[in-house]
C-alpha cells in the first residue's frame, strides 16, 4: 500500500504534502507508486474535492471515510472545523499472479474494509492533534504552507504507527 497525504487550506490551496508507504506487515515505509503515475497523485486528490465538498455537509463527522475511487486510487478525507481538508490517497500494491496474497483483513489488502477505515481514522486523528498545535504557533499564518519540521516528523510517526 502506498499513500499520498495532503492538506488543503480553505481556498483549496495546498499546504502540506507527504508521501509514505505502509509500515504494517513488514512494509518498509516506502511508497511504491508506479513511476509513470506518481505525478498524477495531486490531480487525483484535487479532483475528489467536489465530492468532499458534497459529502462534508451530509455527515456530522469530521472524518468522511473513503469518498472517491479513481482506478486503483482510493481517497479518504477529513475536514477540520475551519474547513481545512486532510486528504489521503491510498493505493493498494498491485499483486502479480504468483505472489501469495496476504490475509484479507490486513490494512491495505482491501482499501474499503472497516480495518483500513479505522486505521486511517486513527491516522487522521493524530495528525489533526499535531496540526492544531502547529496552527496555534504565532508565526504561522492562516492558509500558509506548513513548513514546520516538527509537524512533518509527527505525520511520519503517525503514518508508521497506523498505516
Amino acid at each position, binding site marked *: 500500500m502506498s499513500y499520498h497525504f495532503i492538506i488543503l487550506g480553505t481556498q483549496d490551496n495546498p499546504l502540506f504534502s507527504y508521501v509514505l508507504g505502509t509500515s504494517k506487515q513488514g512494509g518498509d515505509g516506502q511508497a511504491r507508486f508506479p513511476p509513470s503515475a506518481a505525478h498524477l497523485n495531486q490531480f487525483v486528490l484535487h479532483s475528489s474535492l467536489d465530492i468532499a465538498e458534497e459529502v462534508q455537509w451530509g455527515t456530522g463527522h469530521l472524518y468522511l471515510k473513503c469518498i472517491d475511487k479513481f482506478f486503483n486510487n482510493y481517497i479518504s478525507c477529513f475536514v477540520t472545523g475551519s474547513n481545512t481538508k486532510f486528504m489521503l490517497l491510498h493505493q493498494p500494491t498491485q499483486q502479480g499472479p504468483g505472489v501469495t496474497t496476504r490475509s484479507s483483513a490486513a490494512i491495505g489488502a482491501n482499501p474499503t474494509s472497516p480495518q483500513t477505515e479505522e486505521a486511517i481514522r486513527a491516522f487522521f486523528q493524530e495528525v489533526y492533534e499535531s496540526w492544531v*498545535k*502547529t496552527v*496555534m*504557533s*504565532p*508565526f*504561522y499564518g492562516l492558509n500558509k504552507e506548513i*513548513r*514546520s*519540521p*516538527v509537524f512533518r516528523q509527527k505525520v511520519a510517526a503517525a503514518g508508521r504507527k497506523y498505516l
Partner: protein
Amino acid sequence: MSSNRAARLGEEIWKTRIDKVSAELVTLTYGTIVAQLCKDFDNDYIEVNKQLDRMGYNIGLRLIEDFLAKSNTMKRCSNFRETAEMIAKVGFKIFLNITPMVTNWTNDNKQFSLVFEENPLADFVELPDDGRAQDELWFSNIFCGVLRGALEMVQMQVEAHFISDILRGNDTTEMRVSLIRYIDDELPPEDD
C-alpha cells in the same frame, strides 16, 4: 527568608489572592505581540529583542508595586540570594504559576541563573525557519525587562539576558541575572 518559606508564601498567595486567566489567552496574546514585532521590524530580531526588553522594563516598573502589595512582605531581602528566591518562588509563582529553578551562583553571590522548566509564553511556539530566528531571537525576552524594571524600583540595578532557550533547540531555557550594584538613595539636586 528561607527557600521553603518563600515557596509556601508563593503557593498561598497564588491560591488565595490571584485572579486567574486562561493560559491560552496569555500564550496567544504574547505570541501575537512577538510575531507582530517581527513583522514591524522586518525580522530584525536583535531589534525585536530590544523592544521586548523595553516593554518588559515598563511592565516591571509598575508590576513591582503590585507584587509588594500582594506578597505583603514589606521587609527588604537581606542579600541577593534571598532576592533570587523571592523572584523565583513568589514572583514567578504568583504571576505565572511557574517556579523557575535558581542555580549556577557565582562565588561572589552576584550572578545566578533561572532555569525555566515550563514557560507559559512559549507553548505551541515554533520559531520561524528562516535560518536566523533560531540564532538571534530570544522569544521570551520580555522576562529580562520585567526583572530589570522591577528590581530597579527596589534599588537594585541588574542585568538580565537569556543564554539558552528550548525553542532554539537547547536542552533548557536559562536566564542569567547579574547584580550590577545597589542603587544608593540619591539626594535630589539642590536648587539654588
